[in-house]
């Protein structure tokens, strides 16, 4: 499908524009940054229009045709990117993203190889914040008490260089419900994009109190992750809802303007109806995706369980270690020549137990949250796949109905078909992006864990080696005393 290739090129070019090294190559395409931005906004707007058109029955005659014309515009513009002599194969999909395959046999300056190279570099330059144009932090949790309820708000600080924002800095206060609102808006408007999950409402096991310090800190971190992921996402970061979330002081009034309860009910009913019917011919790549998602969900859940068990065992080990040091020092208290070595061993044991506690903390604050996040991602992926299936099912249903009636031209069906294509392509692109991001995130978390374990052992090693050294010095001193 050529559609997603074009989209891909546009994304790439826009990102490449930010990196000075690639300007020369980008100029070969003879497009301006402004054009690239507009194209992408058009595309996202198409998605919004389609979404609105499906959901609102009031303007069937306005949105679908408008959406169609916009998308036609978009594709026309984009096809101008590709001069006639370039030979792009239609089969090649997302293999572009993998390092092993290349799009064409073009030379080093061809767009395909440039795309590959850019992708490679982008994966390695994950940390560069200069490339980020939207930088969000979540901090300063505060408790608010009203007559009806008590809740926590967080300060959301935004720093941006983007031209579509009025200022370069924004500061607002948001509560968990506000994050939920943002996420549900994003999911509604981009049903087949992978929107990063939010931390859970409350944790049932362990009966964690909502206002417990650890819980608040864990949630704050997860909320920041969520906003970082959204602001890094090429499509979602352009969402108007995100902008409102980050900039508007009074969010409550905006929330009231959102599509109402009834519309959402309608959507759910339609979704259920279509899922009952099922999808006739799901494209193979999505079947594979589904299988992967199921397996990934179960594996990541296992890793999470094992990690939790390790944390439990290690906690008990630390408790016993704390009890292990006093017997040494108490014994040392009643000895003479042995007093010093015994007290020193007591000290070593105590230091090691402190180190183990630190390492335990690292596990709880770095590895476990990362695994948990991806467990929630797995659920999100399942939901995305369901929605995609629903969209396809709806299209198939309408088309069948149309064929039964004998209608030849159905603008509605045409719109649905476009919608299916758009959704599929955006999911494909986002899927790749998600896979790569997952790999990076989990790799980082695991590396960090290995590093923390290494440091723990190195510190304990130093503790015991110091003891041995002091004993050897004492021993050689004694020998000097004994020698006449």
């Amino acid at each position, binding site marked *: 499908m050529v559609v997603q290739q074009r989209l891909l090129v546009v994304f790439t070019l826009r990102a490449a524009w930010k990196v000075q090294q690639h300007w020369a190559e980008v100029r070969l395409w003879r497009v301006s940054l402004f054009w690239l931005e507009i194209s992408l906004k058009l595309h996202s707007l198409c998605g919004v229009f389609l979404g609105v058109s499906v959901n609102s029955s009031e303007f069937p005659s306005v949105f679908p045709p408008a959406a169609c014309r916009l998308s036609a515009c978009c594709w026309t513009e984009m096809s101008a990117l590709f001069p006639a002599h370039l030979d792009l194969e239609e089969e090649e999909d997302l293999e572009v993203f993998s390092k092993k395959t290349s799009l064409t046999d073009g030379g080093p300056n061809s767009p395909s190889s440039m795309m590959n190279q850019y992708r490679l570099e982008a994966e390695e330059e994950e940390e560069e914040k200069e490339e980020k144009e939207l930088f969000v932090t979540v901090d300063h949790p505060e408790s608010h008490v009203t007559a009806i309820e008590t809740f926590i708000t967080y300060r959301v600080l935004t720093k941006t260089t983007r031209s579509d924002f009025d200022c370069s800095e924004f500061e607002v206060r948001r509560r968990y419900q506000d994050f939920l609102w943002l996420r549900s808006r994003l999911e509604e408007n981009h049903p087949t994009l992978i929107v990063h999950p939010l931390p859970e409402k409350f944790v049932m096991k362990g009966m964690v109190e909502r206002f417990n310090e650890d819980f608040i800190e864990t949630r704050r971190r997860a909320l920041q992750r969520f906003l970082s992921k959204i602001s890094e996402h090429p499509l979602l970061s352009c969402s108007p809802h995100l902008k409102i979330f980050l900039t508007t002081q009074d969010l409550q009034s905006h929330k009231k303007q959102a599509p109402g309860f009834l519309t959402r009910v309608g959507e759910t009913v339609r979704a259920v109806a279509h899922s009952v019917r099922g999808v006739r011919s799901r494209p193979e790549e999505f079947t594979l995706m589904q299988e992967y998602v199921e397996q990934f969900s179960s594996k990541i859940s296992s890793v999470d369980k094992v990690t939790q068990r390790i944390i439990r065992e290690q906690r008990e080990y630390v408790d*016993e270690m704390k009890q292990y040091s006093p017997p040494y020092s108490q014994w040392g208290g009643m000895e003479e020549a042995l007093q010093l070595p015994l007290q020193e061993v007591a000290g070593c044991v105590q230091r090691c137990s402190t180190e183990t506690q630190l390492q335990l903390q690292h596990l709880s604050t770095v590895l476990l949250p990362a695994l948990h996040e991806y467990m929630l991602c797995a659920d999100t992926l399942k939901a995305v796949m369901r929605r995609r299936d629903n969209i396809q099912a709806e299209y198939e249903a309408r088309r069948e109905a149309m064929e039964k009636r004998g209608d030849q031209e159905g603008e509605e069906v045409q719109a649905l078909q476009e919608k299916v294509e758009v959704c599929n392509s955006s999911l494909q692109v986002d899927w790749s992006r998600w896979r790569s991001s997952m790999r990076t995130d989990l790799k980082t978390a695991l590396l960090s864990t290995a590093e923390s374990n290494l440091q723990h052992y190195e510190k304990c090693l130093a503790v015991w080696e110091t003891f041995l050294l002091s004993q050897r010095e004492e021993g050689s001193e004694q020998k000097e005393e004994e020698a006449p």
Partner: protein
Amino acid sequence: MAEDGREESVAADDDSQHTAEDGIHSLNNTMVEEGPTLLRRMEICVAEAEKRSGKNTVNMQETFTVYLIETRPMDALAEGRNPAPDSLWRRYSEFELLRNYLLVTFPYIVVPPLPEKRAEFVWHKLSADNMDPDFVERRRVGLENFLLRVASHPVLSNDKILHHFLTEEHGWKEVVYETGFQAKADSRLKALSATFRVRNPDKRFMDMKHYSDELQSHTSQLLRARARVADRLYGVYKVHGNYGRVFSEWSAIEKEMGDGLQSAGHHMDAYAASIDDILEEEEHYADQLKEYLFYAEALRAVCRKHELTQFELEMATQDLISKKQQHEELATGIVRTFSFKGMTNKLFGQEAPEQREARLKLLEELIEEGEEAVKDKTVECEEHVEKAWVDMQRFKEQKDKDLREALINYAVMQVSMCKKGIQMWSNAKECFLKM
């Protein structure tokens, strides 16, 4: 550890020039010989352990373990010859018998303890089964240690029964019983009553007794805490083994991450498996601590013996005094203290002069005996105090040295464990980098 014996003996080297035959002869004949300890003349080791079946005292079939004791004359080895060792098999109960004999025969010596009869301070994975091969192996080491300590002791090593134990397999038990040591053993009741009723025990011994109580309490507390820590550490390592399985399964569905995850999983398995050896080694450290836990008991026994001899001396002295008093009363007629005799005299009149004479004579004999007894007891008590004090000093030095070494060994084990951990996690890190 038991190499002290070699350093301690001051005697000249001419002893080691005895030939093998001379050596064995002198072992059989002499009882007390100052100078070089047995260990200088003879290399001793407990080489193996075997399971045997046999009928026990109540004629029931039972399985037990026997240990092979091998001995070789030291001078033969010094001359470069390599003779085959003499060997015999002994059961744990025979070791116990030997030790009981030594305890009774040398009550002023802190007799080295045997390894534990049953596995105590057991943590989860360690079995409390006496037939468990690891337990048997550790016991073998403990028994060898016992023999080396006894054979390097300046006093204990020259004992005939000990030599018999090491050289004559059959008939040793009869020889031991023939010494009649069991009759010489102090009854528990006697010892206990002495502990409560003694008036003037030597303060140094009382301090030692107090020390032995504390030593026992601290070492057992430490051993318990260590066992619990070992248990938990075992749990932590083994749970990491689950990562191996899970990473391997996960790697099957991933493309780029697959290799890295799978090799990391292998390292996690290796990490989990490494704890078995680590903790087995730590058991040797626990055994060293246990030895001194049991040594505390031996130390206390020496102090109790002192209390007993002191008490008997006090009793004998008291007895003598009262007899002298009776004699005086009878002789002079003056009743100094309230006595039954005085009362009956007043009530029923004095007795006849012949009876009085007879009684005076009896009393004089008894007084003579009593004075002898007091003399003997005094000598016994003073000798015990002198010899015991020497041995307790020796014990103290040995204890300080041994336990310091044990702590150093423990630190070495911890260092080794940390190094293994560093290696494992470095490998895992490499694998994660490849992901």
